[in-house]
């Protein structure tokens, strides 16, 4: 018998356990070069899409771009890449829903009102804190309200209590930012 035939015969008699485990073993496929390249490209595409999405949201957010209001230290936090604006994503509203869907948000949010105490009144902005008991307090304890496109009643100053109506979009930065403010009412001056 040729040596290889002896080996062939000997292989037949290897441990049963070896045979059994080999039958049930699942080989882990090694990705080929093009598959690795495709995976990398897909990852880059996802990252780029997320980045683009964030930029898009920042640009349509209402307080971004053209806003030039000052922040609490003299310059209001602008949307997008401004320092001081962290995690610039959008969350739903938490205040009293008063009317139907906002025309700008594709029906995802509703016009909302909440009551807050003015912490700071600046040029083109109000920094407010929702009053105790207002649902908005659960969403944010400090909110930057752009007043560029809305009339601010006389007497609105630090310590005043106001009712703010806006389109429901809240930018989850700190302080939180709201856009699409349609009305500010002085409740307690």
């Amino acid at each position, binding site marked *: 018998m040729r040596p290889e035939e002896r080996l062939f015969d000997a292989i037949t008699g*290897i441990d049963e356990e070896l*045979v*059994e485990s080999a039958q049930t073993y699942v080989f882990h496929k090694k990705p080929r070069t093009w598959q690795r390249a495709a995976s990398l490209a897909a990852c880059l595409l996802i990252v780029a899409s997320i980045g683009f999405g964030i930029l898009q949201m920042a640009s349509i957010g209402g307080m971004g771009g053209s806003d030039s209001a000052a922040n609490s230290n003299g310059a209001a936090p602008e949307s997008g890449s401004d320092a001081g604006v962290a995690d610039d994503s959008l969350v739903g509203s938490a205040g009293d829903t008063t009317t139907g869907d906002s025309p700008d948000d594709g029906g995802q949010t509703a016009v909302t009102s909440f009551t807050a105490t003015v912490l700071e009144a600046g040029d083109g902005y109000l920094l407010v804190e929702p009053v105790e008991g207002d649902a908005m307090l659960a969403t944010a304890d400090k909110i930057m309200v752009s007043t560029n496109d809305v009339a601010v009643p006389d007497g609105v100053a630090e310590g005043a209590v106001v009712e703010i109506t806006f389109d429901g979009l809240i930018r989850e930065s700190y302080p939180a930012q709201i856009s699409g403010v349609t009305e500010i009412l002085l409740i307690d001056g």
Partner: protein
Amino acid sequence: MEDARIIELYWQRDEGAIRETDTKYGAFCQRIAMNILSSFEDCEECVSDTYGRCWDTMPPQRPLSLRAYVGAIVRNLSISRYRAQRAKKRYNGAEVLLSELADCVPAPDSVQRTAEVRELSELISRWLWSLGEESRALFVRRYWNGDSVKSLAQELGMQPNALTKRLLRLREGLRAYLESEGVAV
């Protein structure tokens, strides 16, 4: 049906054991036989003979793994058939005479040969256990099951050429191990 239950049927001399073995391991046996013989007709006969051999050997045998047991039988039968076919085709007269005369050879020779093959089997097993799980499975699937390089390469997600090189390194590893154990093949 569980292996233990099928084996129990053999022990009870219940012919349903063969039907159950065929249902569970028929395709497995056919693949092994085909990998060695490359002939559907021969393969069918080998698988059929395998069930007969199972019937004849259980009892007294009670294998731990029925799959490994029937696999070893169909492999042995396929190798024997391959040798018989080769003898007929290439060395017709002399081989037939030699095979007939082999029945007259005294037992010690065959005992010694069997012992050598058994020793080799043990050494190969020991070497296989020293390998990683994937290399171990790969070697068994190629040289015990006889699976093709192409199908294994597909399972592994690699080019057949790359797998051929990997198998070569495995064989060289086995040769080195056997040499280190003082075994000449």
